């Protein structure tokens, strides 16, 4: 068995790579797939925090690569979601600690006993990025509808195309009310500029801040609207054709006006 190796990247930091990795991984695991999430941000690891496993780290990715422990020992099983495993990055080392070849070896090893190996790529396009990309076969580019994020995403897409890897786009933190009032670029705008196939659209949701603080992926609570969105994303990733969720809830703007008058 050999699972799919997918890198989640963006160029710019803080657009939601780690949140996307955690939630997409959790959504796939909830669908019964065996999923390994790999934090490639050596020195600035965060995937462990988002998933709330930071206290359970004994070994990390660098120690696996250096042969100081086995992969199975470093993998942390998520206690809430069956089939979800996390391989944390080292915090006290830096990205030059491992090579592209070592990273490739690591992810191929993981792919032997997981259906999906999802790699959380660090920001930037340097060594850490090259490692993460070297270990994957396909890519998910996360961006937000902001000029700088899109420009960096474009740069990264260029790099991915050079490697002839299939790529799909996730647009994060859309605020439908701002799109409506013309203050934020729409999904169509972003897709047009980046000319990429869409994997998911995620609205900006304050819940994410809260769940991240608590170390719980939002897909755990299936009543949350984002849970459904990540589930659809997971299904699309597996090749299903799923309609995109319409984000046009009663707009913030209309609600203000209504509230103002009422």
């Amino acid at each position, binding site marked *: 068995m050999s699972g799919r190796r997918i890198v989640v990247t963006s160029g710019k930091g803080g657009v939601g790579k780690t949140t996307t990795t955690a939630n997409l991984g959790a959504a796939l695991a909830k669908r019964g797939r065996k999923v390994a999430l790999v934090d490639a941000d050596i*020195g600035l690891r965060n995937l462990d925090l988002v998933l709330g496993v*930071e*206290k*359970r*780290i*004994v*070994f990390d990715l660098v120690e696996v690569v250096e042969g*100081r*422990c*086995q992969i*199975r*020992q*470093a*993998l942390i*099983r998520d*206690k809430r979601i069956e089939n979800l495993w996390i391989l944390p990055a080292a*915090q*006290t080392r830096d990205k030059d600690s491992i090579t592209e070849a070592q990273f490739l070896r690591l992810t191929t090893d993981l792919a032997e006993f997981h259906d999906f190996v999802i790699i959380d790529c660090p920001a930037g396009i340097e060594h850490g990025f090259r490692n993460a990309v070297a270990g994957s076969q396909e890519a998910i580019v996360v961006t937000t509808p902001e000029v700088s994020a899109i420009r960096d995403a474009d740069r990264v897409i260029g790099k991915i195309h050079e490697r002839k890897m299939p790529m799909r786009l996730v647009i994060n933190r859309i605020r439908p009310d701002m799109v409506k009032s013309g203050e934020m670029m729409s999904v169509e705008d972003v897709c047009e500029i980046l000319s990429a196939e869409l994997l998911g659209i995620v609205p900006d949701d304050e819940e994410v801040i809260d769940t991240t603080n608590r170390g719980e992926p939002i897909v755990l609570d299936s009543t949350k609207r984002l849970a459904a969105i990540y589930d659809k994303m997971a299904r699309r990733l597996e090749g299903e054709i799923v309609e995109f969720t319409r984000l046009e809830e009663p707009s913030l703007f209309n609600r203000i006006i209504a509230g103002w008058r009422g």
Partner: protein
Amino acid sequence: MWQRPPHMALLRGTSQGLQITIATGEFHDSVAELAETLQAQPDFYRGSLAHLVFRSTAPSVEEFQQIRGMLDQSGITVEGMLGDESVESLALELELEYLGSAPPINIEDLQKRRGTRLERQALSEGARSLTADFAGARSDLAARRTTPVVPLTQATTLYYRGTVRSGQVLRQLGNIVVVGDVNPGAELIASGDIVVFGTLRGQAHAGAQGDTAARVTAIELSPTQLRIATLIAAGEQTATRSKHRDGGEEARIEENRIVVVPIVRGVS
């Protein structure tokens, strides 16, 4: 858990890893008991390497795979096995390491030891046990000791004033004293004791070369992880804890696990 009848299947940690003994008698009972033990603490042994000891003749390949599958589920990797010639041929067939004949084990001794543990289990009133989650890693921590143990008389103390921040590591053959906070993501590693005059939020490893008498003391102890000698404990959710305990808290090994107790003046 301790009041059970003599073990058909026995799990114990050694310096080489986990040793699982399948006693003589009905194979299925042993397996059932092993399953029960694993079920009781599903994550306890996760990540460990195990040697299987067969006291009777080796099981069939199918039977063995049944055990192995069960251990796999609990995150235990079978590395090798011990037993008679039939076990050796089984090991050969499965390309596992054969480690010789089964060591003599005195079950009565073991029960006696456990009995005394029961009696001594009562801890001081405020004692708080941290959930041990890393049994499997213990042996590896022991194996990590590459440098020889420095006698305490030669060990020195590292004094550090200021905040130890994420990503920073203080290592010392001897004791570490920090006047300031130790933040999440920071690591203190000492062959002796660790004392933090401040909040310990990061990771601390006292007695890193195997000194089980080592302690970790801090004014506020809310580490992401504590390690003493070869034991590891994860911090509990800090929410339930009273924030300011006068005089601070101390973590030490009692009953082969890490416990945290408030420091009471005149005691300890």
